[in-house]
């Protein structure tokens, strides 16, 4: 897949590794939680609910972890619109 993912600067192998991980998480979020769903006689089991939950949890926690690993803590929010 030729996917542009820009979570941070691209000047180290660690960053490249993180980018690959983020790409995987973005794929998982879409393929597991989005897309066409055919219902009806399809078995919509508890497993699917778990799947959606775990998928989101993975994505959110990993994005936040990625930001923490970047080093410089964020300080102060973007200024409000005026």
């Amino acid at each position, binding site marked *: 897949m030729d*996917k542009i993912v820009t979570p941070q600067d691209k000047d180290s192998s660690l960053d490249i590794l993180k980018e690959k991980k983020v790409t995987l998480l973005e794929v998982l979020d879409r*393929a597991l939680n*989005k897309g*066409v769903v055919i219902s009806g006689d*399809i078995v919509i089991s508890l497993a699917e609910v778990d799947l959606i939950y775990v998928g989101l949890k993975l994505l959110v926690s990993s*994005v936040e972890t990625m930001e923490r690993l970047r080093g410089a803590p964020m300080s102060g*929010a973007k*200024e409000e619109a005026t």
Partner: protein
Amino acid sequence: MNIYIYGIIDFNKEIKETVTGLNGASIYNIPYRNIGALVSDFDESIPIKDEDHVLEHEIVVEKIMKNFTVLPMRFLTVFDKKDNVISMLNEHYSDFREDLDRLNNMVEFGIKAIWPGAIIRERIENAYKKAQSDLSLSTQSPGKSFIKEKFEKYKIDKEFEEEADRCIAIIDDFFNRFVAEKRLEKLKTDNLLLDAAYLVNKEKQGDFKKAFEELKASPGDLKYLFSGPWPPYNFVTLLPSASHTKSKRLDTFDKIFQHKGLKEAER
């Protein structure tokens, strides 16, 4: 036999693309009227092992997306025979046709914005407490104190959300001119300010990417994650409805999450 579906395409003939499916399986098109379902056959169960299979699903959809409009199916949509696939296509034809027309020549981009939620919340709380301390407070009964605390929390939460709305409006404004549709999710967590999916015409991809560069260069301490172009996963509109099809979700869903890699990712 199991028939695994990758997506619905705006094409009803044999596909010429050299693309392989899950576990290297061959892919073919099941036509119905002027659309088709892109599928692979499996003799028995589909040996789902790990997230690599999710990537394989995605690779198929992306390769096909280069030449066709694709409605990506959710991972692990499986039918037990061809007749049921055709029944499904018949039942949902108008939905598929409408989506294929709407999503023609479109791609999806993802934007995530992360802000320091805890710091912002603390700032709001401090401002609120300062404003309260400036008021002369009389002794209150436990009941009144309880209600006051609840009200304070409500006010702080409300202001936190309003600040999020203001920031999201600023971010969204960078992209509005170049998008056909959007899906914005606010504050999935305190730190994940915005999780957005934008539907963009292929001719406007360059403009959209440029807008992101401008957003990144703008003042402020937010962090951004940009991804794409993706198949339009977030913009298919088929809603779950009654169906007589015999498709099924595999029982091995949760096995995916036993995989070491995903467990590590979760940590």
